[in-house]
């Protein structure tokens, strides 16, 4: 083959789009195999997003249940608990925001839920909470 017949891509936009499509497919296939596949710059998989939405809902439910329990007034004395309450129960939800902002919010909710569950598990009443099936389910899912 003469030198000037080497394949030379001349349309970078199309190549970028094809690369994005194939990278997305690889990411999906890896996800199906249970392997983590982080690709910088590409969007979050829909499975992951559904998981994060569920984590946010679980965090809201957990906070409401804790506030409604006899321990509620005691927990409210803690500044970090009041922050969680303000952020996830009283602030408007970010439904209308851009997908990037919404994703950041959901990821933060997941982190907060994990921290809260860890703290609840380690306290003296962790062993009492573990007797409850709902608490064990949350532990299993997020810890």
């Amino acid at each position: 083959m003469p030198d000037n017949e080497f394949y030379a891509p001349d349309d970078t936009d199309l190549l970028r789009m094809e690369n994005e499509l194939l990278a997305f497919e690889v990411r999906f296939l890896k996800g199906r195999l249970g392997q983590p596949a982080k690709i910088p710059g590409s969007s979050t998989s829909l499975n992951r997003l559904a998981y994060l939405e569920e984590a946010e809902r679980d965090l809201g439910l957990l906070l409401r249940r804790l506030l409604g329990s006899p321990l509620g007034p005691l927990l409210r004395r803690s500044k970090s608990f009041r922050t969680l309450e303000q952020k996830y129960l009283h602030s408007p939800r970010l439904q209308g925001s851009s997908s990037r902002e919404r994703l950041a919010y959901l990821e933060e909710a997941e982190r907060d839920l994990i921290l809260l569950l860890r703290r609840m598990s380690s306290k003296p009443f962790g062993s009492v909470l573990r007797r409850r099936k709902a608490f064990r389910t949350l532990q299993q899912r997020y810890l």
Partner: protein
Amino acid sequence: MLVYAGRFADRVSSAKLPNGCEVLSEWDVLPFHLAALERATTLVVLDPFSFPFESMTEMQWDVPLVVILPSGFDASFLSAVFDEAVLGRLGLFDRVATADRDLWEELRLRYRWVGSQRIELHCDLPDEAAAEICGRLEEEAAKPISPGEDYETVRYWKERGDALATWVPQRAIHVSHHDPAFDKAVFRVQSKALGPQFAAARGARDEDVPFEALEVGVGVGRWASKLDPANTRFTGLDVSGGMIRAARADFPEGRFDLLEEDLVFPYADESFDLAFTVSVLHHNPASAKRTLVSEMWRVTRPGGRLMFLEDFVSEKRTPGSTIYPMSISGFVDLVLEATAGRVVLEHLEALRYPHDPFFRGGLLSLSKVGTPRTW
């Protein structure tokens, strides 16, 4: 256009056929010559008894065929000779030419052909039949409308569909710069990808449990032929009234409705188990895409599927181009926004069409998350 005249080659002269038609004899289709078929836009088989169908490769089958049924033989005889190897392989992009209405009807029912696949001949003589078919195909090829400089999605597809509906509905599938051979090949690749996903969407439900499927941008209803009417209630939506009439005529067991210009579906929430669209969204601007995706999500039952088979590698080269480019990431963001993230990705597949240097197509299958409002 190639015309295989076989044993009648001496009676069929290319001089009597439109320009660009090439006549082939029995010697021209020896297996090592068959590669020449791949450059044809259509292959007219005047003498099916002597044509080596069994030697054709998958790529050669991508060329749309017009098969003239030999006169003087009944349906049972023709089925015994050709059956699934030939007649069973003739799909929506292929045509069957015959003057015998009863023969056509009997074979149509047996091989699930549709009415618009028939070319009604007015004579039995090979040379006259060849001239009649080639003349008609040439007229059909001249028919498709190209968008002007001011391409406006709904108006263009409505006018184009209406104009082609009564004359040659299949041409409405073709984008103006593609030939029928390319579109048949695309359909083959897309069918291979969609078939398993249709089965997955149906799941393990019993055969007698009806499966409700909706196609958005149904056109002539080409995908209705891929879902078994015995266990599927097929519904199609299109902006062209002409296309709706053509689809109703070809698939009487399906339901076909007109999509108004506001793009709001005339169905109640959670009416379908599957809502899908093929090569429609990338012809629409972002606002229309969002409305269509949102409507598809609305009419799908929780646990049901949404499928999108679109081009994710394209660009708008001219103002009159029918393409509104979208990347896969951009589209996923749009789906998440239109559905508020209440979907789960079940399947993703990149598709490469024949003779295309790019993996251009992408099939996404999503499950709708949620609790049914009614049980």
